[in-house]
């Protein structure tokens, strides 16, 4: 009967309209704030209070979703199914995104607070003119450990120590965990050959039975005492240190990894101006301090540093001593074949 067909067509039409309608809901021109801002950031990296006070002050609702690796963020972005206004890639990923023409050029007139960023963090080689990116927080990947369970200062090699079996965690990400193994083996983490990766995979396979879990946010396990020694981000260690005084953080003698996460605006964003206002807001000293108070990563914002106590400025996780930093390495981007090989080898470790 025709009724049903008509009804059906009507429903489909309504749905299509609804789908299209959500597309152009938030478009804003220069100088006019949008209603909503879509932020895609790492998990455990953005305190809700900051978003709430931004909404209160500017009347813009920040829709916040999280990811747990650069790969995951890029995949979402490339799938063509989301329009984020701000994402927070790591330095070497910013470079790739610039090369792939994924980013909008920032209008620095809208971000005067950029001058609060320490000058060492201006014009880094991944974005030589700071045309596309503004530093968010930086930090390192090293070892968080429980001083009541671990004797002495551990290095990466101690992750393999059988005395700690069932209490070890490593980052749940092919690039991060394999880079750690490469460093432990003394192999180049930014230019590994096929054989290097194969060796790293075999070592990781030996580590596997020792592990409690692959976990990129092990702070809860560190706090509860279930994890004794974790290959993790400095800030995750910092979160655990706030709750459990037995936890401390060290960059291992093998090196450890350094990185800096940056605020960028993807090309698909329709709210560039609002995004820039938000970025500028995050660079306010008080706001920036709130970020690193909640998640104790290293803050590149001089204004925020000036507000910190001596104790906060010498926190072992956020600001490791100079001598530990000497060995640490920055991540560099790898060719796609190497990344795919790493993904595959990493899965093989878990399957076998």
């Amino acid at each position, binding site marked *: 009967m025709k009724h049903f067909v008509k009804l059906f067509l009507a429903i489909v039409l309504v749905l299509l309209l609804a*789908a299209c309608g959500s*597309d152009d809901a938030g478009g804003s021109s220069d100088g006019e704030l949008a209603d909503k801002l879509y932020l895609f950031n790492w998990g455990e990296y953005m305190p809700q209070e900051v978003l709430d006070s931004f909404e209160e002050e500017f009347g813009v609702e920040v829709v916040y979703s999280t990811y747990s690796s650069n790969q995951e963020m890029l995949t979402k972005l490339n*799938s063509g199914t989301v329009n984020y206004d701000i994402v927070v890639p790591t330095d070497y990923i910013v470079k790739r995104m610039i090369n792939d023409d994924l980013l909008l050029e920032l209008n620095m007139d809208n971000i005067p607070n950029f001058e609060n960023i320490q000058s060492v963090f201006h014009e880094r080689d991944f974005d030589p003119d700071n045309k596309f990116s503004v530093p968010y927080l930086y930090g390192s990947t090293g070892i968080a450990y429980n001083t009541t369970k671990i004797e002495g200062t551990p290095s990466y090699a101690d992750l393999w120590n059988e005395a700690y079996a069932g209490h070890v965690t490593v980052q749940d990400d092919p690039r991060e965990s394999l880079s750690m193994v490469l460093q432990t083996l003394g192999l180049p983490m930014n230019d590994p050959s096929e054989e290097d990766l194969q060796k790293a995979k075999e070592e990781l396979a030996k580590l596997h039975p020792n592990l409690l879990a692959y976990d990129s946010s092990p702070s809860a396990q560190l706090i509860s005492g279930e994890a004794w020694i974790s290959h993790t981000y400095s800030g995750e260690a910092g979160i655990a240190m706030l709750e459990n005084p037995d936890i401390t953080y060290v960059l291992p003698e093998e090196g450890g990894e350094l990185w800096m996460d940056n605020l960028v605006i993807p090309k698909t964003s329709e709210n560039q101006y609002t995004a820039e206002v938000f970025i500028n807001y995050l660079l306010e000293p008080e706001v920036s301090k709130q970020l690193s108070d909640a998640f104790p990563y290293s803050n590149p914002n001089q204004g925020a540093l000036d507000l910190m106590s001596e104790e906060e400025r010498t926190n072992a996780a956020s600001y490791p001593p100079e001598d530990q930093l000497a060995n640490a390495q920055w991540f560099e981007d790898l060719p796609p074949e190497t990344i795919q090989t790493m993904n595959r080898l990493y899965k093989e470790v878990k399957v076998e």
Partner: protein
Amino acid sequence: MRPKTKKILFLFTTLIFMFFYIPIIILMAFSFNDSKVGTVWTGFTFDWYKSLFSNDQIISAVTNSLIIAVITTLIATVFGTLAALAIHRYNFPGKKAFNFLFYIPVVIPDIIVAVALLALYGWLDITLGISTVFPGHVAITISYVMLVVIARLAGLDASLEEAAKDLGANEWQTFWKVTFPLIFPGVLAGALLAFTISLDEFVISYFTTGPGSDTLPVLVYSMVRLGVSPEINALSTIMVLLIVIMVVITGRKMRVSK
């Protein structure tokens, strides 16, 4: 059954019920635990419930879940009931093939439906959000509604409809005055089933939801991945209690209608 067999089976059944319920009860108990970490009892508190109700993310996830479940139920119930009537009443070429089509959502793993929808949306450049979640939910629930309504139709006395026609009612009148009231309990049961499946559904939502439109199960998943926290216990407790209420109400309804 022999008394001895009965005794053994009774013991066995009790054990299975304990297996079902002990973990859930412990989970609920620890939602009132004062300690933020670990599973050692340190004292009674309602704090986790308080912080739950002031958590915007949870409130918006509940809203999203309800919106999606309501839309899904409306569409799936209407479409599924129509399909059930067609399949029950008429013989037409290709009926077997259609029947088979309706079984596909039941026998295909949900992750495949989920990635397939994501691929479709990616290819069409459709922005993910609430409006991309419910099409998948409808696709998997239509079949269940249809099966429930067909079951009801099968138990229907066809002579009632014939009597209505003999008394001069046309097809449209017969449907609304006779058939529909008779199958209504089945339609309602199908709707309830669709609503519950949609509320509970995780995999398809996880793949097809967009920023700001997480459903409750998707939010629970991302919370659980961060580790044990009494807030999740509190949220879980509320979810379990809602299910208990719903099951008890439908149980009562069913007994009354019998």
